[in-house]
């Protein structure tokens, strides 16, 4: 083996590694014409008019509290073993990287799909692992199911409890993004959205939501 093919092989591998670092896997989100990586909703959905209870036990008027601000909403439950804590932890990491001038204009809402277990006290413990500005919300199950239906999300599915009484709850895995200028959800961030994708989009949606919106 001579030096030239070896050098070429090494250079090729180096490029391969760099390419891998850029794409970060096969399931990366692709930017639309507006440059946003989030998946555009076919039909934008209005922010529901509902009052829930936050993780401090205080009433939380969804529209009034988040009016005119970029708002991310995720439906899950505090005992969730996988998707919910990962989504929230990744959003926390994203918030750690963004300047406060951006994060101060973003609301992150975690709405429980399991209000029977997720009391305000339980939610307070769960939310304590994430950014202190994130808000956990609970309420009556019917109220939450209506809210999800209004947002075109599938209703929660409760599995049979195991011997210890633990049960899992099927819930939507995407994060909805309500834009600040019209308070409608325009984008969804499916399970698998990377921290870099969130960072990119949050900057863009906060700064130029109207321009970004299709």
């Amino acid at each position, binding site marked *: 083996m001579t030096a030239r093919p070896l050098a070429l092989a090494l250079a090729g*591998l180096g490029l391969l590694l760099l390419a891998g670092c850029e794409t970060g*896997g*096969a399931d990366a989100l692709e930017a639309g014409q507006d440059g946003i990586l989030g998946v555009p909703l076919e039909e934008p959905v209005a922010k529901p008019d509902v009052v829930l209870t936050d993780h401090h036990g205080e009433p939380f008027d969804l529209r009034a509290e988040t009016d005119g601000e970029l708002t991310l909403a995720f439906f899950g439950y505090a005992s969730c073993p*996988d998707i919910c804590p990962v989504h929230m932890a990744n959003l926390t990491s994203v918030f750690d990287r963004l300047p406060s001038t951006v994060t101060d204009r973003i609301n992150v809402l975690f709405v429980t799909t399991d209000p029977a277990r997720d009391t305000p006290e339980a939610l307070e413990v769960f939310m304590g692992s994430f950014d202190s500005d994130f808000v956990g919300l609970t309420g009556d199950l019917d109220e939450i199911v209506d809210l999800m239906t209004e947002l075109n999300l599938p209703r929660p599915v409760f599995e049979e409890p195991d011997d210890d009484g633990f049960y899992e709850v099927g819930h939507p895995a995407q994060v909805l993004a309500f834009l600040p200028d019209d308070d409608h959800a325009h984008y969804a961030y499916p399970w698998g959205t990377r921290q870099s994708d969130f960072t990119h989009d949050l900057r863009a949606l906060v700064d130029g939501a109207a321009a970004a919106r299709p």
Partner: protein
Amino acid sequence: MEWWCAATEQAWDWTPRFYLGSWLFTLSLLGAYALAWRRLAPPVVSEERRRRNRRKITAFVVGALVFHASVDWPIGTLGAGYLASVGMLRFILITLVVAPLLLKGTPVWLARRLLPEGRVRDAARMLARGLPALVIFNAIALSTHAPAFADPLLSSPVGAMVMDLSWLLGGLVLWMPVLSPLPEVPRLSTPVAMAYLFAQSVLPTIPASFLTFAEYPLYSTFELAPRVGTIDPTLDQRNAGLIMKIVAGFILWGRIAVLWFRWAASQERPDEVTSPDLDFDELLDEEGMRPAPEVDR
């Protein structure tokens, strides 16, 4: 029961998991080795020979057990699906610990069987030269650490197995120029071997830097895995980069030090027959052979 440890997106807990493939692989490896000793080993003619055989067997068995630990619960499970740092530890263990131990545990008569004369041995001879071995090992290391390859591989048991076995193969290729068990596949001379290992300790700086200084997690596997405790994936990835650079460097530099001291000792006692690595001493006894010639390449 699963075949091989891979990313599953299940929440991490300390409940042991059973991987059929990794157990079958380790048991087959040890079984074949035991069978080879029983059926193929030349008769033991001296206590010294017996002592050296025991050392070889120990090296091989420890190598096989470390391999098993690297691909089984909990290290294998954590490294394949939860923590990049543990994944890197597995890579280091398999390539820089297991591979040299397996080579050190392979007696000449077995190596001759495994690498029969002809194309196979010619290929081994070519691979055991410093530069090709360096290129092949680093090609395997780079490609299996590129997120575009690593993430899909780790998502399936077969892919994860291919990754682990390619690390083992790459490790064997990497160490052949230094620890070849076969006199017909000569080792590098000690000064060249030291330079070779030094080069290998420097090369991972590039991928390690990517991991250490990346702003975001590079691997979706570890970024989207259920968390183990409160370990953040970016910090975990940073640790992986440091392990790649520091731990691997420590092992390679340790080996360089061993080679240096043995070489220095041989220079002080030029009348004694010594080989660059004393494992070749077995060739000096009942097999009636001289150690493999050192070559400068």
